[in-house]
């Protein structure tokens, strides 16, 4: 456990724990509303923020937060108004964001794509004290939203139309989800990297689904997986000198594969138990005849 003696590792581990909690906590709502790749899009947009931070010599974390929040709001607006070619508009936003980041960082004095690499794939040694402060504040906001408004976000993500009729402010909640996702991307940026953030939002949720039947349990398992892989990936990266982002993502996918293998016998046992509980000769679904027969024709 000698790694705990280094200040940079303490900072990196703290950041990893916060990333492990927040990324799946937001990701579960994105998966529920079938926008699993939204995190990826925000990650691309955040690159412009990083570039801007370098160019203006301000903190890239706060700049990335500002720009990705703006990008997320823009994506939500495109979803409302641009019904026809929303996918094209989103693609332009994603790649515009990435190109903007590369352009701006090369314009910055002494800047090159090398500076960008640590933001794209994560880096332990570069997590500074001010980064940790920013990450703590942002993670606090994400947890406040994802836990405090879990019933509202669940309702909106499950069935938007119904949520509107229960009087929920659907648009405001959608915007809040987008903003929270954007904030999470920047929380995770230093540890996992912008290009791999989305994996930590989506894959733990997918892995947790293999074991659970309820939203609450999925949430808890996903966060547990997230923290486990983020911390163990960070430690592995310290000993093996490999990029933390890639390690964490590969570990997450391994967790998914392991849980899927584990869940197959579990699901089979559940199905058997359910079949035993059902009385034999249960009526089949949909007793309405599928086609109109000659005997149904009635002359008036």
């Amino acid at each position, binding site marked *: 456990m000698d790694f705990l003696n280094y200040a940079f590792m303490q900072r990196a581990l703290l950041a990893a724990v916060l990333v492990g909690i927040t990324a799946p906590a937001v990701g*579960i709502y994105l*998966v*529920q*509303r*079938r926008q*699993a790749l939204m995190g990826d899009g925000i990650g691309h947009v955040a690159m412009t923020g990083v570039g801007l931070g370098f160019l203006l010599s301000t903190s890239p974390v706060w700049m990335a937060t500002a720009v990705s929040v703006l990008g997320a709001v823009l994506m939500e607006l495109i979803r409302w108004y641009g019904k026809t070619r929303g996918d094209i508009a989103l693609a332009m936003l994603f790649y515009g964001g990435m190109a903007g980041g590369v352009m701006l960082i090369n314009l910055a004095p002494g800047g090159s794509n090398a500076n960008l690499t640590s933001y794209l794939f994560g880096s332990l040694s570069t997590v500074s004290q001010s980064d940790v402060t920013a990450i703590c504040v942002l993670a606090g906001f994400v947890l406040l939203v994802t836990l405090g*408004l*879990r*019933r*509202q976000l*669940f*309702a909106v*993500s*499950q*069935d938007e*139309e*119904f*949520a*509107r*009729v*229960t*009087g*929920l402010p659907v648009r405001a909640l959608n915007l809040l989800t987008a903003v929270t996702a954007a904030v999470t991307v920047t929380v995770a940026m230093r540890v996992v990297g912008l290009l791999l953030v989305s994996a930590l939002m989506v894959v733990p*949720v997918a892995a947790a*689904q293999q074991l*659970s*039947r*309820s*939203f*609450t349990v*999925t949430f808890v398992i996903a966060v547990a997986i997230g923290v486990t892989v983020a911390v163990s990936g960070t430690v592995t990266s310290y000993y093996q000198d490999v990029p933390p982002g890639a390690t964490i993502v590969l570990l997450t996918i391994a967790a998914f594969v392991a849980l899927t293998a584990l869940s197959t016998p579990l699901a089979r046992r559940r199905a058997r138990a*359910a079949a035993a509980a059902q009385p034999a000769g249960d*009526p*089949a*679904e*949909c*007793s*309405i*005849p599928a*086609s*109109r027969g000659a005997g*149904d*024709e*009635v002359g*008036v």
Partner: protein
Amino acid sequence: MTEPVIALRGVTAELGARPVLRGVDLTVGRGEVVALLGANGSGKSTAIRAIIGQVPVSGGAVELFGTPRRSFRDWARVGYVPQRTTAAGGVPATVAEIVSSGRLSRTRFGVFRKADREAVHRALELVGMADRAKDSVNALSGGQHQRVLIARALVAEPELLIMDEPMAGVDLASQEVLARTLRQQVEAGTTVLLVLHELGPLEPLIDRAVVLRDGCVLHDGPPPRAVGQHALPGHDHVHPHAPAGTEPIRTGLLT
């Protein structure tokens, strides 16, 4: 008549460039059970969705409980059952979790108290799904899923129930449960507006039928009673007021 629960006056709505509602007038009084009938594409679902604000209205007025829909905020008085296809999330959820989301309109900031949890249990008992509360909704049959959606609408104890094709793709056993649940609600004084493809087992409950065709109200009055050959499945309903030579309104089971 007391103040209508739902009032539509000259409502027009478009989906894209296509006019779907072309001046619909519809009033539902307190305690009434009104069925909205019509062929596919006649505007039934759009009319319902215009009432709840899901489809923008381009002309006319929509009022709920005497308040213009735009300024209506008292959504706990309205229970809505959408077409079953709209409620599928990408994450598993239990029956109780889905039904709980219908209770949000009765809570402050989404904080659940004992009374709210009891209401969820009661709503599940009403539709005979209390024993499945902890099961994933993905494991349910179409009919059971529909019962869960109705429990979600009932859990806020609404005065008005709006249902979009509650009987579509529902097995006979569930149809009977739904009809029984609805009867209890109507006896307790709930107002009901429902889109139906056919009157079916709900027929004895319905006070009035409104038939739409091409976005216009074609008939507003007592429901067409199925007698004789009309009681057979798959019949074509020829309306006596319709001008000669018009296409019969197909309200039959199989059209």
